[in-house]
């Protein structure tokens, strides 16, 4: 099943870094997933996130406020 990954963030350097890490993990491991960048603050607030960036996998918040390592993202996606 295709996983839906969302990255919530208003475009700060940390958010960009998170997108980079997630994209790398997905392509390097051939994971079936869509990556969506959510920059709209109203949309972000629906997830009740107070600190960005946040990583949302299939509508569940996995990480908030920090850039994860590749291994961590891979662990979350498997």
């Amino acid at each position, binding site marked *: 099943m295709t996983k839906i990954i969302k990255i919530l963030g*208003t*475009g700060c350097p940390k958010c960009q870094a998170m997108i980079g890490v997630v994209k790398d993990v997905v392509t390097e491991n051939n994971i079936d997933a869509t990556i969506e960048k959510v920059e709209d*603050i109203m949309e972000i607030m629906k997830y*009740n996130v*107070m600190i*960005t960036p946040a990583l949302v996998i299939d509508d569940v918040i996995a990480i908030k406020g920090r850039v994860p390592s590749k291994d961590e993202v891979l662990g979350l996606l498997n």
Partner: protein
Amino acid sequence: MFDWVQNSSDWLVYDVFNLSKGQHLTEALNFFIYDTAKILILLFIVIFFMGIVNSYFPIDKVKNYLSRHKLYGLEYLVASLFGVVTPFCSCSSVPLFIGFVRGGIPLGVTFSFLITSPLVNEVAIGLFVGLFGIKTTLIYVISGVLLGTISGVILQKLKLESFLTPWVKEILATAQKDQDAFIAEKQTLKQRLPIIWNEVLKILKGIIPYVLVGISIGGLMHGYIPEGFFEKYMDKDNLFAVPIATILAVPMYSNASGILPVVQVLVAKGIPLGTAIAFMMGVVGLSLPEAMLLKKVMSLKLIAIFFGLVTLCIIISGYLFNILL
């Protein structure tokens, strides 16, 4: 405590590089090496320590605490103190603001947090200890916390809810005290440490270039500007110095890491410490990018009141320091 750093620096400059004592370039280089090593060590210690504290007080826990506990007026101080241990990124200020409003936390208390969080952060503290010593750092931290507390109380008294943007007002109307139960991560310190460690390294990596540039500029100035140079222009009796320094500082969005080493040299060359602290508070605490982001949740008028009041408080603390120190 840092004698060994100075000794190593002396050894490197005079013995290894074989430069002769007393020359401008040699002294500047020595200053650069000593300062860089000392500051990086202190930054590492402070960021690491704050990382551990923050790991046990994540932002959701802070919000729930403020939202559920009756603190009889102390909530402003508590919010301000939480602001110290929470790392701040101006890009998170909007989600943070909304989260607090949604949790039914009064606007003034939210402001206390929003003011102190950037003003007193782990990078600024680490740099302060390295550049100015413990005593000045304590004064900076305590006054930053008080500044956030007092500004929050005043902003609450002004009843500014009507200046929020419409969609925030809607959230305000449906704010609840007890919404989501926060599930605290039950991790041992051992499990937390790798994550904290990675964060520390990332923060350090991000600021090292700024610190190096700042110290280089400081090092050059240290070697070439004569002692007491600025006293002629900016002594304590010059009443305009503090407001001018503060107002100049607000639009500057420097990473504290770049500006602090330069300010330290300015102080060494005769600028009064109160004027310098006011300048740094303006640089670190208020920034235009943050104001632009806050437009999503506040009317321009509210942002102006918010920034105006904080600027005023910074100017007053600048005067106070110049009188007291």
